[in-house]
Structure formats: C-alpha cells, structure tokens
C-alpha cells in the first residue's frame, strides 16, 4: 500500500508534468483564468517573443476589476486608462483565441464567481489566475492559487507553472455553527487565530462538520480568504454538495464523462493518517459573528467586543495596531457596536453570490437603509444579478434604499469609479481592510453579508442576532 496522502498531495501528484533533480517541478495547469489588470503585459510578452497561447481551450478571460457597475455601462468606460485596459483584454482574448466573456455578456462577472458558475471549475483541477483570490476555487477540491503577471505569461506559453510543493495544513471546524454565524465568520475567525502570515508556505485543507454543512457558496467564501491567512491555497474535499452544484453547468462533463469524472472525484479526500505539518482546530460553537477593527484581515473581533488597546499586543503588532487605530479613527475601549458607519458594500468575490444576497435581503426585508448611509449591492455576475431579480431580492434591496448595480469587482478595491472618500467608514463584505483599499483614506470593516445588511439598517456596526 502506498503512503497515505492528503487531498493536496493527490492533486499535486496528478498534475506533475516534470520534476528536475533539484526538486523544481512543472505543475500542469488545467484552467487559466485571466482578467484585464494582470494580463496585458503577459500577452505583450508573448508577442515580443513570438510565442503563442499553448492551450487556448483551457484559458478563460473576463474583464471585472475596471468595469463600471452603473446601468449606463453599455455606453462605454469614461476613465481612459480603464477603457484601454479592458480594450486590451478584448483584443488579446480574440487574437489569441481564448474563451471570453465581454463586458456586456450576461455571463460576465467577477472571474472567481463565473468560473464555478459556468462549470469551468471542477474538482481535482489545477486552476490559476493573476489574482490572489483564485483560492476561491479550492472550495471544489481544486488546487487553485494566484500568480503574478510573469507567471501568467509562463502559463499562457507553457500551460505549466514552476513550483515547489507547499506544506500541508489542516484547519478543522468541529460541530455546528450557532445561529447568525456564517462562512465569512469562519474564515475571518481562522485568520484572527493564525494571523495573516500563519498560512505562509502552506496549502490549507478546511474540514470538519461545520465546513461539511456549508453550501458551495459558503465554502467558496471560506477558501477565498485563505490567501488573507498567507496560504498559497485553500481546499475543501469534494462531496455530494459539490457534485450537486457542478452537475449540469455549461462546461461540466456530461453523460459517460460525468460518470468517469465522478468516480475520480470521489477519491479526492485526505487519507486517514495522512500527514499534516500543522493542524488548527476551532469549535464551531465558539465562532461568533465578527468584524474587523483594523487595517489587516487578522484584526478580527466578535461584534460584542471593544476596540483593543495596542498595548495588549506583542512585538511589531503594537506599532501596527497604533497605526491602524489612528487610520481607522477608533479609540481603544469603544464598543464595536457603537461605531457609526457611512457606507455599506455588499458584493465581491468573497460575498457576491446568490446565497450572500439572500442572506442580506432577509435582514433588510421590510426595513430601510438608515438616512445618510450610502449602501450598494453589486452582484458577482450577470447571472447572479438575474437570479436575484427573479427571486425578488433586487426589489427588497431597492425598496430598502440600496443601490442595485451591475456585476464587477467594484468597491472591493475601487479600480472602477466605486470608491470611498477619505475617512468614510464602510461595512463591507469584501476581503481586505488595508489602508486605502476602498479609496484613499477610507475605513473598511470586513464582515458577513447579513452583518453588513444590519449595519445598513442601523447605521452602525451591529450584531445581526439582535436586530429585530
């Protein structure tokens, strides 16, 4: 019998195209997702060296970061640099013959939302994209991670990536979650526990009853932020929930190929006694609805907490926390629930899927966005938007006073016009609370869609469990 393997080991072994004597490996890439921001220089590199795209059939391109989310976007992009970048993707996708979803295609959306939605993302695959949140696709038991533009060019040219194997880390969430606690609270709580460098050098496999109980949408939220914990990738072993989600998607296998695929996918789990280099266990019942208070995703506290005193920390974190609090305009000892917000953003590759919109709509149904609060919902894809409109969610948001938008990355990073001004405080379902992330000087508090919706209603950070 061969040695027990982790899920990561199994996917790695199935994609090893070459191993040099010094241990440097060429990993074969099954799917390469491409967006407009990190690809122009890579395509230009191909042109300059006379190289081609080796596997255009395995390459999927979509503009998402720069696209306007306003309803007039058919008229074009005002910002010249953004327009040039989107036009460059348009030209490159057509010239090199890769799959392409242009801005006004109803299937357009955030690259990490449409990959799974269209069935490009399948269990056991290797998936890369010039975007750190590629980790999202790990929810399907696919090895998925972000790469830089030079590596984008490498994958375009060779369909492989030069890699050294990472170490294995297991994050187990045992038992059940309490009411009001979501996938976002799990993933933020894990980062709060491990820190933003805790996963550096590892691929994380999330497991345990609380993970098993999550929908695919929830699992994507968990894996999406593996990168915020420093890990190369996050993985969840595929199961019936996964197969059910994948079946019937446009690019999922059909007929006999479905059966063959399913047979292999069912072997994709970590063997008993497989070795993990690091193990973290968290009880599901110990996880509370959380928000971030600082400018690092590790700055996580239960909503019932108070703004910490930097003196509570050790080492370099003392100065980092002082800087964070000055930037965030917060005073130690303030109850988080007493912090007023100015804006609410619901969307992003972390929380822009249909289940996220349902959770937020359930909170705001029959209520109003508090006066003076700028609140917006940006669906993760055109198809998520359509579904939300059909389910009546869009009407709930609009009646409550939310701005209902077209799909894109939007205010998660503000490369399009969806940006916040200095000192504007935002309850956001996105993934990064870095300084300047949503606009120069803006202040981001990360949280779940339900919590962001609750903040929109009350105008302050709010414990969704106590909102009537």
């Amino acid at each position, binding site marked *: 019998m061969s040695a027990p393997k982790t899920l990561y080991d199994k996917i790695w072994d*199935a994609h090893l*195209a*070459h191993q*040099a004597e*010094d241990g*440097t490996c*060429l990993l*074969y890439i099954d799917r390469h997702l491409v967006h407009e*921001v*990190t690809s122009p*220089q890579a395509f230009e590199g191909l042109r300059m060296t006379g*190289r081609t795209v080796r596997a255009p059939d395995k390459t999927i391109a979509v503009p998402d*970061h*720069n696209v306007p989310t306003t309803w007039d976007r058919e008229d074009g992009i005002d*910002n010249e*640099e*953004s327009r*040039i*970048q989107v036009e*460059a993707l348009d030209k490159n996708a057509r010239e090199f013959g890769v799959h392409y979803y242009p801005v006004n295609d109803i299937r357009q959306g955030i690259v990490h939302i449409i990959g799974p939605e269209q069935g490009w993302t*399948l269990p056991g695959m290797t998936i890369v994209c*010039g*975007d*750190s949140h590629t980790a999202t696709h790990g929810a399907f038991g696919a090895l998925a991670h*972000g*790469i*830089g*533009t*030079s*590596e984008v*060019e*490498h994958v375009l*040219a*060779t*369909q*492989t990536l*030069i890699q050294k194997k990472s170490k294995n880390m297991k994050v187990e969430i045992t038992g059940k979650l309490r009411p009001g606690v979501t996938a976002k609270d799990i993933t933020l709580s894990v980062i709060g526990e491990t820190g*933003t*460098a805790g996963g*550096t050098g590892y691929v994380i496999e999330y497991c345990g009853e609380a993970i098993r109980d999550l929908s695919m949408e929830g699992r994507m939220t968990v894996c999406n932020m593996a*990168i915020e914990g*420093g890990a*190369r990738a996050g993985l969840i072993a595929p199961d019936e929930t996964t197969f059910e989600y994948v079946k019937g998607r446009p690019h999922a296998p059909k007929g006999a*190929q479905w059966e*063959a*695929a399913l047979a*292999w996918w069912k072997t994709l789990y970590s063997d008993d006694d497989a070795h993990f280099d690091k193990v973290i266990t968290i009880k599901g019942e110990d996880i509370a609805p959380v928000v971030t208070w600082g400018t*690092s995703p590790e700055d996580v506290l239960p909503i019932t907490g108070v703004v910490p005193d930097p003196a509570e920390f050790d080492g*370099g974190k003392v*100065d*980092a926390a002082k*800087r964070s609090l000055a930037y965030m305009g917060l005073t130690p000892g303030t109850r988080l629930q007493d912090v007023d917000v100015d804006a609410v953003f619901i969307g992003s590759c972390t929380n822009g899927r249909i289940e996220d919109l349902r959770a937020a709509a359930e909170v705001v149904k029959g209520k109003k966005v508090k006066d003076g609060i700028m609140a917006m919902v940006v669906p993760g894809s055109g198809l998520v938007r359509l579904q939300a409109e059909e389910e009546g969610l869009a009407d709930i948001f609009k009646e409550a006073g939310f701005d209902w938008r077209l799909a894109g990355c939007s205010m998660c*990073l503000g*490369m399009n016009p969806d940006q916040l001004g*200095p000192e504007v405080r935002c309850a956001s379902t996105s993934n*990064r609370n*870095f*300084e*300047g992330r949503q606009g*120069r000087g803006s202040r981001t508090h990360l949280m779940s869609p339900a919590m962001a919706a609750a903040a929109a209603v009350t105008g302050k950070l709010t414990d969704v469990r106590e909102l009537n």
Partner: protein
Amino acid sequence: MDKFETLTGIAAPMPLMNIDTDMIIPKQFLKTIKRSGLGVNLFDEMRYDADGNENPDFVLNQPAYRDAQIIVAGDNFGCGSSREHAPWALLDFGVRCVISTSFADIFYNNCFKNGILPIVLPKEQVDALMEDAEKGANVRITVDLEAQTVTASDGTAYPFEVDAFKRRCLLEGLDDIGLTMEKAASIDAFEETAAQARPWV
C-alpha cells in the same frame, strides 16, 4: 531580466509589519498596460499627501534614503494581492533587494521574476540590519547572492537560504519560460496521458 550578483547600497528601514501590496502600489496605478514607470508611485499614499506633496516623514523622502537600493522591512512584507506592479514599482524606483523575517508567497515569487532578491533572515538578524539601516546614508549593506550572505556595515556577515533554481535564474538573468519550453516533450507526454485519464478536463 537583469542579473543579480552582488549589490552594495543604502538600505531604507521600514519596520512596519504587514506592509501590503496596496501600500506598495495603490490600485489607481494598476491600470497601466506597461511594466515600467511605476517607481514615482511606489508607496504612493505613504509617500505623498492627498495633494501630491512629499510627506517629509516618509523614509524614502528623507535625503539619506532617496537612493536606497535595499529595504529592510517588518514581518510579512508584500502581503495581499498578486499584483506584479509591486515589484515593478520597487525595481523602477531602484530597489533590488528586500530583507524581512517573512514574505507573502506570491510577492516573493514575483520578485525573482524581476531581478529583485527577497531575503528571509531570523528576527534578531533583521533587527540588527534594521538598526544598521537606521544609521542613514553613510552606511552600506552588501548582498552577495553567489555567496548567499548579507554583510552589515560593521562587517558581520549573515548567511541566507534561497532556492537553488531561483538563485540560478537571478545570477544568470535567465528567462524561465524559455527554460520550461525546453521541456516541451515532457509537457506533451503529460498532456497525452492526462487526456486519457481525465478526458473531461
């Protein structure tokens, strides 16, 4: 890519931990379709005020550090996004080496693709180099990739580890796509086998 063999230069101290890629190069500068010209916007929101005036407190605006080629940084430098614009901006400014206790994975890889050497050293050694860097422009730190050492101004040499393949690519300025294309036969063979085992991919 320019070779990296040895470098003797001014080191700028940036002790803040978790310096993320949004700090290194904010999103408004990611709209370029070129790799060059980003140096002027390196650390933009720390370096300039909202009106574009230099912030005199920021290390790279201080006379001693305007020509820094090395950054000694706090833990977890380069965390956040995959934007290669971060190393492009560093390189365009003139930085060829960053020293820290840890780097985010994607940023670390991106550096090597652009002739920048990221060096991981234990905390007390980074602290010692930070102190050295804080002395200013009269101090030079020397990095020798062949010998795998960082030498402080007092002559203390600190050995560092680096992956053998990455080291070779930097020392020789190699194009790794070209190297991989030399293994096309292996990739062809893999594709053929995989197409039979997993025809649905």
